């Protein structure tokens, strides 16, 4: 029984903290992909840089690197377009 009192106190504190967001319903969209797109953009940049480093190091021939680089840049541009579309900007 001596557990009941501290349990009630702790439960009350926890409930206050945990249930607080429910009192102010969020207006944010459940599927805001901005942060995910930012992460995708960074990853694509990294991929482009990796390929360029491989080329400069002599691990990738120019004939292989050029089309790969163009393809990756195209994908990066597509991500940037999606990001801009999300922010309501137009070219």
């Amino acid at each position, binding site marked *: 029984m*001596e*557990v*009941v*009192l*501290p*349990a009630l*106190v*702790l*439960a009350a504190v*926890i409930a206050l*903290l*945990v*249930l*607080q*967001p*429910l009192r*102010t*319903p*969020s207006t*944010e*969209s*459940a*599927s*805001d992909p901005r*942060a*995910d797109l*930012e*992460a*995708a953009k*960074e*990853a694509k*940049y*990294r*991929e*482009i*840089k*990796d*390929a*360029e*480093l*491989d080329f*400069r*190091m*002599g*691990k*990738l*021939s120019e004939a*292989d690197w050029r089309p*790969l680089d163009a393809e990756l*840049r195209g994908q*990066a*541009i597509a991500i*940037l*377009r999606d990001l*801009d579309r999300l922010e309501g*900007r137009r*070219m």
Partner: protein
Amino acid sequence: MSSADVGTAALVVGLGTALYAVGAGAYAGRTGRREWAASARRAIYALLGLLLLAMVLLEAAYVRSDFSFELVAQNSSTDTPTFYKLTAMWSSQAGSLLLWVFLLSAFSSAVLFLTRRRLREIAPYATAVLGGVAAFFLFLMLFYASPFATLGSPPVEGSGLNPLLRHPAMMFHPPMLYTGYVGFTIPFAFAVGALLKRRTGPEWIRATRRFALVAWTFLGFGILLGSLWSYSELGWGGYWAWDPVENASLMPWLTGTAFIHSIMVQEKRGMLRTWNVSLIVATFMLALLGTFLVRSGILDSIHAFGESTLGKPFLVFIATVLIASVALVVSRRSDLRSDARVDALLSREVFFLLNNLVLILICVVIFWGTFFPLISEALTGTEESVGPPFFNGIIAPIALVLVGLSAIGPLLTWRRNSFSLLRRAFAVPLAVAVVTVVALLAFTDAAEGGLALVMFTLAAFVATVVVQEFWRGTRARRTMTGEPPPVALSRLVGRNRRRYGGYVVHVGIAVLLLGVAGSSSFNEQKDVRLEPGETVTIKDYEVTYREPTVAIEDDRSGTGAPLSFGAVLDVRKDDEHFTMRPARNYYPSQSEAMGPVGRYFGGEATSEVDLRWGLKQDLWLAIQPDLRKLKGPIRRGNELPERFAGQAIVAVARHYADDPPPAAFRAIVSPLVVWIWLGGGIVMAGALLALWPSPEARRRRVTSLYAARLGRELSRA
């Protein structure tokens, strides 16, 4: 109201909070309601607070030696050194469960905080999974093994910490292992979330990759600390015995290694989606299995907690998670199709896949060998086990293939490779490997080691490949930027930490395996009985037993042992002279039947090994004093009134020192063992390098024209 009541209350409310996180997270995942997702996330933060409170209360009980706590009475005593009091918690079943779930809540809170604005569809389901795993461990603590159980009539003195565990490595080993096990829960939870929401792209991998790497690093470090403990404390002279619990920790590390490699293939090429979710499910299952094995008592192990009642609930939980995960993966197979196909067999992705298959093969062999006693009993009714020769015989050659792949991988690029460029890249490493093998054959007896010779050669190959990669990268950067070499190297590594950190890890693994190959192929061991003045020769060492030593409440390792018998040995090697002092510590038994003096010799005893570390080889010495001649003095001491016990023990110790009987010694010369620990250190350094956030992550967003923006941002790298 005692602190134990508050602790129990924290666990009760913690269980409720974790279950709330499950419900709120699942509801948010299904409906997309952000406020419920935020509430579920807060429940996980709150759980961390509750478990932190529970941890503090239990640690405080240990520090003040509050023997009304059953756990404190069982695992500590007033004379246990404070450091060991602080870490004694996880030497017990219930205490280690609390540590497990505390670490889980900390990791869960960290990942949910970092993804609070990302993965909005996946994160709520991941929160529910994390809450579910935490709820299971809280359930175990509340209904099977409570860390806050109290004793009606507390003893005046506790039983003390198991003497074998009084070793710094052993105190850090469990938290490291648990951090590893727990860390793999994070990518597992996000993988489940991704599958439930059919978002099987690389987003969940990007969000949790660092957690997988942290888990892998800590698990590896924990395994290494366990090996160090075994080598320097257990008195048998080895660092790996293929013990079931050791194997159980190695298996998730192997599948975790495979996962860390294969997620790169998904990130870069959109391939191996099914493989990746399957790998993380397997890794999490094996982490649970490792936790279960230590607690179930189904397999004999020196590391296990012994018989317990936790086996059944654990088994039910593992089976439930496994069935549910497999069903989920199968139901989402259409969403797990790859975006791309393999362009060429000679590509980095194919070698990563090969590396994965080899790692899984090693894991399967270890799984089979570990569970063979259960399998054989189920099939034949007789429990049979396989020993180190089984594991060594199969795994050693496979490990060589793995090291070979780890050397070739860095030389390859994604998609396709040109033969002429590869030929050039292989030239120097191959030349170094050939020179190494010739030098080893000409100047050493490495040829007698068989596989060890191959391992040494492969280690040289790996090291050369990595040095060459650093050199080629630096040269390329200098060409692009004109920076001086040190600056170019530093910026190259700083801006490609994941790549170069990984290469450093490859070198560390090769160095570690070099140590394993050398020490297992060329070690020499002698078990001898020596009188003072006698000498034994082992390899290049002459070891002479000079005199016995006794220490009362003053053991050299600071473990708090009341009695320690040892020896001073003079060692000569060529022109080098030094002394070594192995000892054996004695801890009193709680049994009064042995008498007030006898109980000091009838309890636990541990070897305090003395080690002479060396880059070339270690000299390892342990002593087993012969106590038979002390039976008379012990018996006479037992007959005295208890208040004279202290003086009687001093008299027994003096008798041993004045008229020393022959003592049994184990001497081992192990070549290259130190390279295992150095290799482990290199692995950790590489992992830290790979984990460190790259400058890209801090790069600001820009808003100009697409192509110009892309070009400018890329040129900053």
